[in-house]
């Protein structure tokens, strides 16, 4: 009996080994490898004047020390700028080891290789680097004012300036009955996976081959980048992503300096070298994200309909731009959410600062855009005295409007065209879940008790499953084992399970027989990577297509052997059988044997297959012209555009009237990612995203002082939430299938975190009676805002109670 696998919340196949200590993360590999450590800049901006390694040379167990001077050819050239863009006129990337200049605290200057990490750090401590400090640029305002420059040849600290416009915003603003202006801010945070980065490289001197293990979100990307840097043929370089302890975006950027240097040293020394990033290194030399300042001007009519939306924002991209301007492009396009303003203009400047570089962190610019849009919607509701869900409803793109083309280009360079979604239905579900219509009464009762409570809402749309492609390769062995591989990577998303479910469903095999490999260039060398909520859409579909190929071939071979028509056959529990006559059957393993006309019956399965005659036409070759040996399929999925998921969240918060402490009483999520391969996994992704969103709303910020020192470079002072800080999350979902891909699915990886800051700001504003415009917010900040509000510096909401009205 075949169980319906697609849509089943089955337990994960990864889990038994992971819960018994059998995970193999980067640092679990390479037991005998040499250890690398780095001397990193203590200054945010400085010239490197001299490097004196004398005192380090006597450290026992030291193997080698490298500075930029030692790096040959391309290894010494700047790291690649991965995603160029016409608007990125002044992109800059760093050298793997600083060449004469450092631009953020943490930039690597000297590489030490020793017998173990303790000794390597001892050597690092003895290396003296002379710096000539230069005045640093810290913070968006300072970057924008440009009294000082990060890079001498980048005027105004502007890496990129981009403008997209649809319609005539200025004219629409001038004609609009109402205009509001908002100044909004989101501060820097970071992915902060529990496992930092890591690279382990093995040089095979016998074959002149390099094998790289990296805790990366793109093993194909690392492989190509390192091969290019080292001037090696691709065929001589492999890259494998082992078990990875979380990514959340920070591991998609590549090649990191260490990803170039560790393989280079392994090749140079002819041995194994490993670098495992420690927590402090991760804070000061991986990547951050989220810091933006927004100025919004919005024109609207008496019904709250958006006539003109004009957004200008300044994006802090840190010291270098290896990942281009993907994040602000996503902000500028996903800002629109589920709405259709009559005209829209978005202009941004991506600015350099002497701080850690900025590359995508789950959400990748969407949280900032959602914050800008949703605070604007709340402001409109307050201005007009309308219910906040009513104003949103009036601006929704409706199901009958789909596909809806915004007239903009998305991060993949393709039209921002929503394919599906039912925003009114999502909103209805959310209002029912949180009890929107009952809140006014609840708030009145709370007020009578002296309590301050507020209800907030946030809506988002997420373009998922961007291309260019992913692939799936499936091979059925003679034992019946089904090997599946796809080239993108895994960091906890349950790919070994979800993709096996797809294959079990499509092919009709027991899931126990399906084994999935991800992120190994030896097994599937064509891939892009795991990011942008794309894995299920891209690899899920590619694997499904490959499975359909295998199924078709299996049926064809079995039909010939059983002397029936392929239409009369089904595959159930790994057995191909005649519908209605199940005794006439052959296992897929047997089909596999038959698909490979070997001369040699080297095992029982091969021998047993000889009982099936098949065609033995002497005029036909054993392997037909248009066929290949083996029961295999390989296919790729390449979409014309992203497919758009959506969701809406609501929260009830309470603030302490005296201390301004903030407590989330309820957190409700309705999300729509179309049909779900494994609903338990999807829900887990949503939970994790919400928790990161709560962190970003109430706890997490990177605190730089004016000299560019990161003051909270540890878990003691960078406040990631524990279970005690994350509320119970209530979820409901909707499924509007995607019309764009064979499985009809959409991505969900980032869904949970996108609207959270907007939702919490909305709720606190509702509790306090004045608008919250900057996130994250802590009790201290709220307390300060209250005092300013009481003193008249901050205006009250104009029609506060009307913005949560019981529906008439």
């Amino acid at each position, binding site marked *: 009996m075949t169980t319906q696998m697609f849509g089943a919340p089955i337990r994960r196949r990864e889990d038994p080994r992971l819960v018994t200590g059998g995970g193999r993360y980067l640092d679990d590999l390479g037991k005998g490898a040499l250890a690398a450590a780095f001397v990193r800049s203590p200054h945010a901006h400085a010239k490197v004047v001299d490097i004196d390694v004398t005192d380090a040379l006597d450290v026992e167990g030291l193997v080698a020390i490298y500075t930029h001077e030692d790096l040959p050819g391309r290894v010494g050239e700047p790291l690649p700028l991965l995603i160029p863009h016409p608007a990125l006129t002044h992109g800059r990337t760093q050298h793997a080891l600083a060449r004469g200049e450092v631009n953020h605290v943490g930039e690597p200057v000297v590489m030490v290789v020793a017998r173990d990490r*303790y000794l390597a*750090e*001892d050597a690092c401590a003895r290396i003296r680097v002379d710096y000539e400090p230069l005045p640093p640029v810290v913070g968006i305002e300072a970057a924008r004012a440009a009294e000082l420059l990060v890079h001498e040849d980048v005027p105004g600290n502007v890496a990129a300036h981009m403008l997209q416009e649809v319609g005539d915003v200025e004219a629409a603003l001038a004609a609009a009955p109402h205009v509001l202006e908002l100044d909004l801010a989101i501060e820097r945070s970071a992915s902060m996976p529990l496992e930092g980065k890591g690279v382990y490289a093995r040089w095979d001197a016998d074959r002149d081959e390099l094998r790289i293990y990296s805790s990366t979100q793109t093993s194909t990307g690392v492989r190509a980048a390192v091969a290019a840097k080292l001037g090696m043929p691709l065929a001589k370089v492999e890259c494998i992503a082992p078990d990875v302890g979380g990514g959340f975006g920070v591991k998609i950027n590549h090649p990191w300096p260490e990803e170039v240097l560790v393989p280079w040293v392994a090749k140079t020394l002819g041995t194994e070298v490993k670098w495992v990033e420690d927590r*402090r290194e991760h804070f000061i030399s991986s990547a951050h994200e989220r810091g933006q300042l927004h100025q919004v001007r919005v024109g609207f009519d008496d019904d709250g309909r958006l006539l003109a939306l004009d957004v200008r924002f300044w994006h802090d991209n840190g010291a270098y731009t290896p990942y281009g301007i993907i994040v602000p492009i996503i902000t500028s396009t996903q800002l629109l959410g589920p709405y259709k303003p009559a005209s829209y203009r978005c202009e941004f400047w991506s600015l350099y600062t002497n701080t850690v570089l900025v590359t995508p962190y789950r959400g990748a610019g969407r949280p900032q855009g959602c914050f800008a849009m949703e605070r604007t919607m709340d402001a409109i509701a307050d201005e007009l005295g309308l219910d906040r869900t009513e104003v949103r409803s009036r601006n929704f793109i409706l199901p009958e409007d789909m596909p809806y083309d915004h007239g903009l280009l998305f991060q993949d360079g393709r039209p921002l065209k929503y394919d599906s979604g039912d925003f009114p239905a999502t909103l209805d579900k959310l209002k029912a879940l949180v009890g929107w219509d*009952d809140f006014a009464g609840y708030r009145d009762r709370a007020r009578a008790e002296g309590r301050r409570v507020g209800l907030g809402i946030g809506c988002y749309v997420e373009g998922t499953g961007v291309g260019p492609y992913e692939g799936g390769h499936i091979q059925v062995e003679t034992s019946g084992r089904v090997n599946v591989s796809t080239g993108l990577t895994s960091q906890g998303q349950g790919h070994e399970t979800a993709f096996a479910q797809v294959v079990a469903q499509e092919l009709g095999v027991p899931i126990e027989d399906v084994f999935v490999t991800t992120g190994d260039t030896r097994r599937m060398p064509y891939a892009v990577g795991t990011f942008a909520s794309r894995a299920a859409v891209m690899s899920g579909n590619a694997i499904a297509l490959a499975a359909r190929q295998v199924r078709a071939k299996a049926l064809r071979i079995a039909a010939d052997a059983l002397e029936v028509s392929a239409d009369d056959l089904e595959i159930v529990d790994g057995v191909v059988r005649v519908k209605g006559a199940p005794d006439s059957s052959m296992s897929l393993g047997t089909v596999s044997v038959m698909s490979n006309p070997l001369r040699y019956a080297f095992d029982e399965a091969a021998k047993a297959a000889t009982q099936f005659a098949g065609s033995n036409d002497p005029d036909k070759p054993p392997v037909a012209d248009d066929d290949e040996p083996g029961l295999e399929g390989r296919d790729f999925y390449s979409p014309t555009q992203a497919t758009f998921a959506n969701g809406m969240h609501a929260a009830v918060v309470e603030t302490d009237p005296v201390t301004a402490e903030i407590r*989330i009483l309820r957190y409700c999520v309705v999300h729509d990612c179309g049909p779900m391969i494994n609903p338990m996994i999807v829900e887990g992704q949503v939970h994790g995203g919400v928790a990161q969103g709560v962190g970003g709303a109430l706890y997490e910020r990177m*605190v730089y002082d004016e000299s560019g020192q990161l003051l909270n470079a540890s878990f003691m002072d960078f*406040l990631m939430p524990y279970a*005690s800080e994350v509320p119970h999350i209530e979820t409901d979902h909707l499924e509007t299938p995607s019309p764009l891909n064979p499985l009809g699915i959409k991505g969900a990886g980032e869904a949970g975190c996108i609207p959270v800051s907007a939702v919490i700001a909305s709720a606190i504003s509702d509790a306090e009676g004045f608008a919250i415009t900057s996130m994250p917010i802590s*009790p201290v900040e709220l307390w300060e805002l209250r005092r300013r509000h009481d003193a008249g510096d901050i205006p009250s909401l104009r029609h506060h109670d009307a913005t949560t009205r019981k529906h008439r």
Partner: protein
Amino acid sequence: MKPAPFVHHAPRTVEEAVEVLGQVGHDGKVLAGGQSLIPILNMRLASPGHLVDINGVAGLDEVAVTADAVRVGALVRHARLERDDPAYAATPLLRRVLRHVAHPVIRNRGTTVGSIAHADPAGEMPAVLALTEGVVEVAGPRGRREIPCHDFFLGALETSLAPDELAVAVRFPLLGAHTGTAFAERARRHGDYALAGVAAAVTVDDGVVSSARLSFVSVTDVPGALDVTEAVRGQEPDEVDWSACDDLVRGHLAPEDDIHATAEYRAMLAARLAHLTLAEAAADAVALQAGSGPRHREHEAVGVPREGGPAA
């Protein structure tokens, strides 16, 4: 982040420990729980050449309740003291405060004496020592001595312990059957250092307040007890307006700005917690005398979410 090399000493007796400390002087640090020291070593914020690991020293792991005090040996882990029922019966404040020290896992290893010797202004146990007017028992090359609390803490992370001395125990004097206690702190996350914390002891004699004292966490450089009795003496415990103590409290505090809170916010929070804990301590005193045993009320750090809201 690996520590720099050090020479490891593992004395078996207090005398051996003192002798080693005498040899290594300022280049040595005592290792007991290590929960504060080892992060510092791992981050190479300090690189002492010698660690004197006292975990193997005999006779330092006792909790003793006498007629006057609860005496805690240098190797008593926070968790052990937290669970100790006789200590709780004698001085409930200990358990009330210990529940707020870091996380349970840290408490399994960290020691109460170590925490006091570390003298972090954000530490809770120094505040308890101050409120109970406790004593640190010290062993040194010149023999044993006792340092009263007010002479022990000199400044942030600074005590009057000489480099060649070892704190072997602390004593928390009992507060008496008429004195109720309470503790509250607020932190950003569960288990974090407090933004502000307050310990209160209120004595009720003949149905009126005869003494009210406070000590603080995170808002003074040096833990010291503040006597606020003059503001509330003679009043009935459930009728006191504790805000009468505000001026005294504000005058005592010396909070600082840091990345988590401003000095002003901390001062406000400490004053607020003072109200709450004084009231609770007064109620505790009344309950003690009514014979209903030590009361244990919850003032939780911001944290555990509760169900709430219209649909709940």
